[in-house]
């Protein structure tokens, strides 16, 4: 016995696997381990109550289709990393923050407000695709921008590991 409860062991396991996954894809976790583990606790709680890992710092609707854009990693992570050096929750941070050269600053909410989200669930970022010019459709991962040309998007994004339903038709 190491004195840790089962849920704490689970937490450590998820923390490590998400951290490794992030690093494999060139992303970095917040170096404040306690803060980061608390966010993972929130993700696991959301997975339990909603069935998916909705952002712990945003109010989820409980309907996956309406919350696709805020399933962690969210659609807003990369632009927030570019502009503020951290995602909205500060789970993912820039290299400078990971190395302790810069501090995390509060990140303003980029997700459109409730009133603009109501019709058609998560906001569609790309307008209707024009007549195809390639022999195969091109799919874009809305989280990390990964592109691939194939009949269907992959089941899991090979870069950031989000599910198929986070892809949009790009060309």
């Amino acid at each position, binding site marked *: 016995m190491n004195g840790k409860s089962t849920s704490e062991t689970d937490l450590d396991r998820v923390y490590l696997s998400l951290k490794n996954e992030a690093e494999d894809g060139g992303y970095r976790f917040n170096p404040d381990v306690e803060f980061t583990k608390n966010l993972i606790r929130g993700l696991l*709680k959301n997975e339990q109550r909603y069935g998916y890992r909705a952002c712990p710092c945003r109010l989820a609707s409980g309907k996956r289709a309406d919350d696709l854009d805020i399933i962690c990693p969210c659609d807003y992570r990369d632009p927030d990393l570019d502009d503020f050096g951290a995602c909205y929750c500060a789970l993912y941070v820039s290299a400078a923050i990971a190395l302790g050269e810069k501090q995390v600053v509060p990140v*303003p909410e980029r997700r459109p407000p409730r009133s603009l989200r109501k019709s058609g669930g998560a906001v569609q970022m790309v307008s209707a695709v024009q007549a195809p010019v390639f022999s195969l459709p091109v799919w874009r991962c809305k989280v990390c921008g990964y592109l691939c040309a194939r009949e269907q998007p992959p089941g899991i994004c090979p870069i950031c590991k989000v599910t198929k339903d986070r892809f949009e038709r790009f060309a």
Partner: protein
Amino acid sequence: MVTEHVAGKNRGTVMLYALSTCGWCARTKDLLKELGVAFDFTFVDLLEGKEQDEAMDQVEKWNPKGSFPTLVIDNRKSIVGFQEREIREEFCA
């Protein structure tokens, strides 16, 4: 709406709209406790149905983005996000 009261110095009505899972909400709550301010808080994600909608209407009245934490001070101003310096200045003055 279910709210919880934290005792402290009376600085008017101080209402914190938070999420039970949010790290910055927790930091904001801890900061208010450290400053010894009396405040009320609610975890909007733990409210259900109509009660949650009503809480969101309140949040959006002060913060149209409807994000958390939203701190409403004395029904005259709001501070959105964990703005440590701004919160300290508000209550240390």
